[in-house]
């Protein structure tokens, strides 16, 4: 495989971007990742983005967002209707062909104009599940309940994940939910939203975007003092039907992590894309995360969960820690679909 690294990244997440268009959101982020390494769009060989028309409320919404990049003269470009982590995967594949040495990846989502928990029901089987309009919190709660009933976690375990996220998120300007002194008892004292999940068990819904610049080989070394090398990346999916799956497991997450090399060798850091504390615990188990791993140092997606960008944000967060010299090897995870149906694992390493 060709050496490919993250050489710069930019993140912006807030509670609601009520008066900001997608273009206005993305211009500073796209500029930031190019400026950070001193290149212009002319030096970018491939561009790939991820977003959702359902969030934008507009068909072909990504066409307009291209204005944030400046596709004049024309560029080699693609788009996935997926989290930006999957756009990064497509860009990584493009760099593997040797037809590109640099790639700009970005993604964004504004879910605040609608009710996210209801909108996500449109992802479900439209014939036998969708018409019941089960909301995303209720589905997350089903998974948490199965986990508790199987004796694989206690309510205290769930609360401890929430506490870790909120404490880690202190000082992260892109986190919505943080607290230096929150305790397990504080979380357990919250009223349940969807039994057994409490507000702190559910990811904090944010609007925002993320941009990442990739470069191959010596080009990466020339652009960045300490590139975050992608030494493994893989993604897998499970069937969606909840009744066909053991919801205490996420086989596609385990498989992706194994194929990305995350299950062998030391990990200093892991950033998880979980919509609930219960999902975070499922992922801990699938990835075999031990005590030595700093999990969700940014607070993870529980602290700020931007639909279509939260997975790419995880990659950016791990890459930053590697480029800063705070970690040598880390796992970034992205997911999509109900109950961790689809999962991507990306292992990043410093040189």
């Amino acid at each position, binding site marked *: 495989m*060709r050496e490919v690294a993250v050489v710069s990244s930019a993140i912006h997440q807030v509670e609601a971007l009520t008066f900001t*268009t997608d273009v206005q959101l993305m211009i500073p982020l796209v500029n930031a990742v190019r400026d950070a390494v001193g290149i212009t769009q002319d030096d970018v*060989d491939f*561009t790939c983005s991820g977003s*959702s*028309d*359902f969030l934008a*409320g*507009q*068909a*072909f919404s*990504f*066409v307009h967002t*291209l*204005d944030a990049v*400046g*596709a*004049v*003269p*024309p*560029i*080699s*470009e*693609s*788009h*996935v*209707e*997926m989290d930006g982590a*999957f756009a990064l*995967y*497509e860009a990584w*594949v*493009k760099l*593997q*062909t*040797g*037809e590109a*040495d640099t790639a700009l990846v970005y993604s964004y989502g504004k879910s605040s104009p609608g009710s996210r928990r209801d*909108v*996500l029901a*449109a*992802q*479900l*089987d*439209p*014939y036998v599940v969708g018409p019941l309009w089960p909301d995303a919190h209720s589905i997350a709660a089903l998974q948490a309940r199965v986990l508790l009933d199987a004796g694989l976690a206690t309510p205290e375990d769930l609360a401890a994940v929430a506490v870790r996220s909120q404490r880690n998120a202190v000082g992260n300007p892109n986190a919505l939910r943080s607290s230096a002194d929150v305790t397990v008892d504080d979380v357990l004292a919250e009223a349940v939203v969807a039994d057994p999940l409490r507000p702190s068990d559910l990811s904090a819904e944010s609007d925002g975007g993320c941009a990442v610049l990739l470069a191959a080989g010596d080009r990466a070394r020339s652009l960045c003092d300490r590139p975050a090398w992608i030494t493994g990346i*893989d993604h*897998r*999916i*499970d*069937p*969606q*039907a909840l009744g*066909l799956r053991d919801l205490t497991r996420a*086989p596609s997450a385990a*498989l992706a992590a194994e194929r990305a090399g995350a299950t062998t060798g030391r990990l200093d850091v892991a950033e998880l894309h979980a919509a609930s504390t219960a999902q975070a615990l499922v992922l801990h188990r699938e990835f075999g995360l031990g005590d030595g791993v700093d999990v969700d140092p940014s607070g993870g997606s529980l602290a700020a969960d931007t639909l279509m960008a939260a997975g790419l944000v995880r990659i950016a967060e791990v890459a930053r820690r590697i480029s800063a010299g705070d970690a040598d090897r880390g796992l970034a995870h992205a997911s*999509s*679909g109900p109950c961790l*149906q*689809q999962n991507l694992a990306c292992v990043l390493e410093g040189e």
Partner: protein
Amino acid sequence: MGSLGERTAVLGVGQTEYRATRGDVSVAGLVREAALRALADAECTWADIDAVVIGKAPDFFEGLMMPELFLADALGCAGKPILRVHTAGSVGGSTALVAASLIRSRVHRRVLTLGFEKQSESNATWALSLPQPFSVSINAGAGGYFSPIIRQYMARSGAPELIGCMVAYKDRRHALRNPYAHLHQHDLTFDQVVEAPMLWDPIRFSETCPSSDGACAMVLGDEAAGDASDRPVAWVHGTAMRSEGNNFPGRDEVSPQASRDCAADVFAQAGITNPRAEIDAVEMYVPFSWYEPMWLESLGFAELDQGWRMVEDGSTSLDGGDLPVNCSGGVLSSNPIGASGMIRFAEAALQVRGLAGDHQVDGARRAFGHAYGGGAQYFAMWVVGAEKP
């Protein structure tokens, strides 16, 4: 920079019948029908497939958000990777190109790629015209958007008024030879095409594409898979994608620079210097009739302002033309939007495999597949050949 890529072959093609309404199947049933036919054509099973790349146009067309999630098991994806591409109208072509990049990069050995649309589930003009808080909608649909650009072409080139009707009549005649085509207008006359109601002047009802349900799939493989195939395969000789902004000073909307750049790139990869002489069959994205002469010029098959002459003298007809265009009937005869680009790519592959049936171009060795989308901003193209590049 420079391709280090694995040679890529089209091992199999599968299409559903294109119809106004495929009420007999679910969305899952529709995509599975095309996928199974592609697997059969490639003499593969689900177990041979390493990954799936699926594409479709806006999710509002069915009212399903990221439908690839619930389609994963219908497409045999349990435990496998699936990517969902969306690049406006060019998506079917772009999807095939992402799948090809998975082979070229040697990440995978066999990839199933599929485009679909089930337009009968919703209303495309509604889906394309949702009101937006920060902009004024022209509520014109695609025809209203493109008609002024066609007018510009007519004024610039001096093309006679009925060139568009000639394209529409030709493509509908071609469609009679394609059993999968949506429109089979056996008794259609040229006069009927001309006399059809004007929808968006100068685009008549007869010069616009239908709304279709349907899916198209291909199995792509690496060099070893192509060599091992007992059936004829199509080798990929070049692939290119380009995008440009919708609005900027000096933009040539009739022949966008992204279109010209994309064509120059793909022909250079294929070693083609004279596209008209070296390409035997063209499957081009023509949702409105006039786009045939416009793209002939933009892609380099005709000189500037001369593309309409190729229509007028029958050069693009399957019956005696030297550059048959849209032998399948094209988008004008079948338009499941998310699949329409992939159908172009797949039909090009069928031509060089010699498997195009009644609409086969005799002895086709190299064929060109093309798709575009957005406000003529997104382009995806490939050249395929009977010989290994």
